[in-house]
């Protein structure tokens, strides 16, 4: 069984569009995250949710909005997509103070 899953795996879209990436974890973890990995492979945290409460927001543009309908899901909604948003987005989850388990990633390409 996949521990952390993301959909879609690939997303190609035009500038200005709005898109969402979904994430689900079946590990029973309390905390979920979104990371962005740029073309140089640099990984940077975007958001963290603990029991449906946002606890980290690392200077991410407000075009990005995480939405957590329940403890097992953390979706990422992006408005007015820009060329610079092209990257691989990773969802992750963990127990408090525990190892972070990463999903397989969603490669977003903005044309």
């Amino acid at each position, binding site marked *: 069984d996949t521990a*952390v899953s993301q959909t879609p795996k690939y997303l190609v879209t035009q500038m200005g569009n709005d898109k969402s990436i979904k994430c689900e974890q079946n590990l029973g973890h309390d905390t979920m995250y979104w990371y962005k990995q740029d073309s140089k*492979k640099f*990984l*940077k945290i975007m958001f963290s949710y603990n029991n449906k409460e946002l606890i980290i927001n690392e200077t991410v543009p407000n075009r990005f909005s995480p939405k957590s309908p329940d403890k097992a899901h953390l979706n990422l909604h992006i408005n007015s997509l820009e060329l610079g948003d092209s990257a691989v987005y990773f969802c992750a989850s*963990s127990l*408090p*103070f525990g*190892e972070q*388990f990463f999903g397989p990633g969603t490669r977003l390409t903005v044309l």
Partner: protein
Amino acid sequence: QQQVKQSPQSLIVQKGGISIINCAYENTAFDYFPWYQQFPGKGPALLIAIRPDVSEKKEGRFTISFNKSAKQFSLHIMDSQPGDSATYFCAANLEGNNLFFGTGTRLTVIP
């Protein structure tokens, strides 16, 4: 500002050799130092981790050396194998589950 500095950017090692990747940090509040391994098209996966009260941790062929006074830590891969070819990220944790990643090292082990 890069919280964790990692070198080298890329590394080529012969099969059976030792791979060494180095990281340095400034913030003494970091309390946990994991290493992640990432294969192409996959999410990062925890490889080995250390806490700052320990100077060395070994798991199989993988060893972390930690120098608290110098604020440096390194990953040593003994008897490197072609299957170890991947990108390796060091990271440092701050206040719970706030991970700061290094810039990554692309390791290639040639047969």
